[in-house]
């Protein structure tokens, strides 16, 4: 049944290039169908495509981790389908393809299949990046994304050379021997671009700050979350946590460079894009600590970040004149930025606290120090933007559509609720973390105890 979550959006994407306009109306129903399938499914589900048993064919795996990640991704697409104004004509099909590939990326239990879905995601993302005439940013992304894709493919090939299989559970069960280092380096290079790690994240500001609200809203939330899941899955479940130190250092560097660069920006969208890089670095650094609390914190923080970014990016693209006439949107913007900084009583505080406490209990003092530094810098630039937008005099409102206003308001109240009562996000992220760390359980459920 879970293959329907990939097949149905793909079917509608194919049909919608002849019946134009179909994609726009079909998107909310398709996403609702996906959520319905998720609600009636009971984990773990392993579906062998074509009926070929596990290490030989391609398996789709719906365990606790992929269940919650797919749920979050589909909820984001549901929210996006409720604000159809930001999806320009002709881009509905791209959103459907992006939904297909993100679902596939998370559900697949096969390395080469995940490469195929990364390719679809990237191709759709290049087109979105070009949106609103941003040829330079899109071209830069195309080149660096293409190269990183080939590194990912090379990593997949080396895994096949070493373990003789492409199935993630089977690879995890076999050993690579001397190839481990090569595979880990290739996967770091391959995932680093999409995961926005420091030396490879140069494309982010140009693409996110192109002036389209669609591009950063979807790439910075759903896709980032799916890639973070894949990073955890590959480096912890499949590679058993080897070479995580490299990811840790890269993650910390990303946090520092991202925050410092965000501070120096004089355009709000670019500042938010750099903040996106920094948050991604923090999540990767927390994932690389490889224990249950830090992984829970990482995914919890990633969920808080994407909730905040779903508020910040659409508002930042439409607001030019300040919040004097749009107090509700301004309220949502401020709540999201306070959550991002990590003020107490806001959602971001909970996740940052969890990451810091998990790092301390693992005897690590560098990550908390970097996190404190990052929070101070974040406070500096986000408060600066809040003050600027609240106190700017303006006579006209910004024409924010009512449905966008409602959605950002609901999300900002959600951030406040999470800040006081974090269990809603915390339970989901703890399930993701447990399931990613449970390598043996994953192998058993896919290979059936061979």
């Amino acid at each position: 049944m879970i293959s329907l979550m990939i097949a149905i959006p793909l079917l509608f994407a194919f049909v919608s290039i002849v019946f134009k306009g179909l994609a726009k109306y079909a998107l909310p129903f398709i996403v609702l169908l996906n959520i319905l399938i998720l609600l009636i499914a009971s984990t773990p589900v392993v579906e062998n495509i074509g009926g070929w048993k596990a290490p030989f064919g391609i398996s789709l795996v719906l365990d606790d981790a992929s269940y919650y990640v797919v749920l979050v991704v589909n909820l984001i697409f549901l929210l996006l389908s409720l604000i159809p104004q930001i999806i320009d004509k002709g881009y509905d099909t791209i959103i459907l393809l992006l939904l297909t590939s993100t679902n596939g990326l998370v559900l697949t239990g096969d390395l080469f299949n995940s490469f195929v879905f990364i390719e679809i995601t990237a191709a759709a993302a290049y087109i979105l990046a070009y949106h609103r005439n941003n040829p330079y940013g899109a071209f830069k992304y195309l080149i660096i994304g293409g190269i990183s894709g080939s590194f990912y493919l090379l990593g997949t090939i080396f895994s096949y050379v070493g373990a003789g299989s492409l199935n993630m559970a089977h690879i995890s069960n076999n050993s690579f021997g001397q190839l481990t280092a090569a595979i880990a380096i290739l996967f770091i290079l391959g995932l680093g671009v999409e995961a926005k790690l420091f030396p490879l994240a140069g494309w982010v500001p140009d693409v996110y700050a192109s002036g389209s609200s669609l591009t950063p809203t979807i790439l910075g939330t759903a896709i980032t979350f799916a890639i973070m899941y894949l990073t955890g899955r590959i480096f912890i479940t499949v590679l058993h946590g080897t070479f995580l130190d490299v990811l840790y250092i890269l993650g910390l560097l990303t946090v520092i460079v991202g925050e410092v660069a965000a501070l120096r920006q004089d355009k709000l969208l670019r500042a938010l894009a750099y903040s996106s890089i920094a948050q991604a670095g923090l999540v990767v650094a927390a994932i690389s600590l490889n224990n249950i609390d830090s992984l829970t914190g990482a995914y919890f923080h990633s969920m808080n970040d994407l909730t905040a970014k779903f508020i910040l990016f659409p508002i930042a693209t439409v607001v030019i004149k300040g919040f004097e006439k749009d107090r509700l949107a301004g309220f949502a913007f401020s709540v999201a930025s306070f959550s991002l900084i990590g003020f107490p009583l806001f959602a971001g505080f909970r996740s940052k606290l969890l990451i810091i406490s998990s790092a301390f209990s693992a005897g690590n003092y560098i990550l908390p120090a970097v996190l404190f530094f990052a929070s101070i810098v974040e406070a500096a630039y986000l408060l600066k933007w809040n003050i600027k937008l609240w106190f700017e005099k303006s006579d006209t409102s910004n024409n924010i559509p009512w449905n966008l206003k409602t959605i950002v308001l609901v999300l900002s109240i959600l951030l406040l609720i999470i800040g006081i009562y974090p269990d809603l996000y915390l339970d989901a992220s703890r399930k993701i973390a447990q399931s990613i760390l449970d390598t043996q359980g994953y192998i058993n459920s896919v290979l059936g105890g061979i």
Partner: protein
Amino acid sequence: MRRFLSALIALGLIIILLEFLNLIPDFGNVDLSKRVSNSFINKSVDGNNETIEFKKSKDLEDGSANVVTSIVVNYRSFDTLGEVTVLFTAALGVGLILKGLRRKRFYREPNFILKTANGILLPLIFLFGAYIFIHGHLTPGGGFPGGTIIAAGILVLYLSNEKFELSHRAKILESGMGTVYVLFGLVGLILSGIFLRNFLPTGVIGELFSAGIVPLIYVAIGFKVGAELSNLISEFQKEGQQ
């Protein structure tokens, strides 16, 4: 400074990749029994260990004589569906980016040789392309190369005729054939509960009518890739207003 750094990074990558090359086992020294591909070659995923004879073995788990096809369109058909989607996305992107441009015209007669040769060669090109994808489960080739050959025929048409325009039906064909591929998967899901299940009998290996849904899928891919690349060619024939 920037150039120097870029060169340094590129050099580092080259050294790393050359270093990795040593890790790959030598040609012919691989223990195939430890790899999943061994079962693909012997068609023994479901535990059938009989020797396979060309034009004799019947009702195997996978009926295509071409081992590449049996992996690409049967054992790992889902990947091929994904690859078809990658090409679809790329073609869609070209269409979106080059939207609203006119056909480029040179306003001069194409070469006489090109025009005459085109009349003779075009049917042969199309026939060859169709042959490649119809026989994809028997001989080297398949939907992707077959479709590309057909699109090459369209390119020749564009070069030899200034007035040639690809009709809107190419888009419908592209969309329809993609839909057919997904529908084949869904029919498998309805009949046996498994997506992309080969629900037709596989027949005798090596016959034209064998391998179940594999040749049908390859025909769909052939038409889809042909229509898609033809659309791409027609998009790239356009120019901007100056």
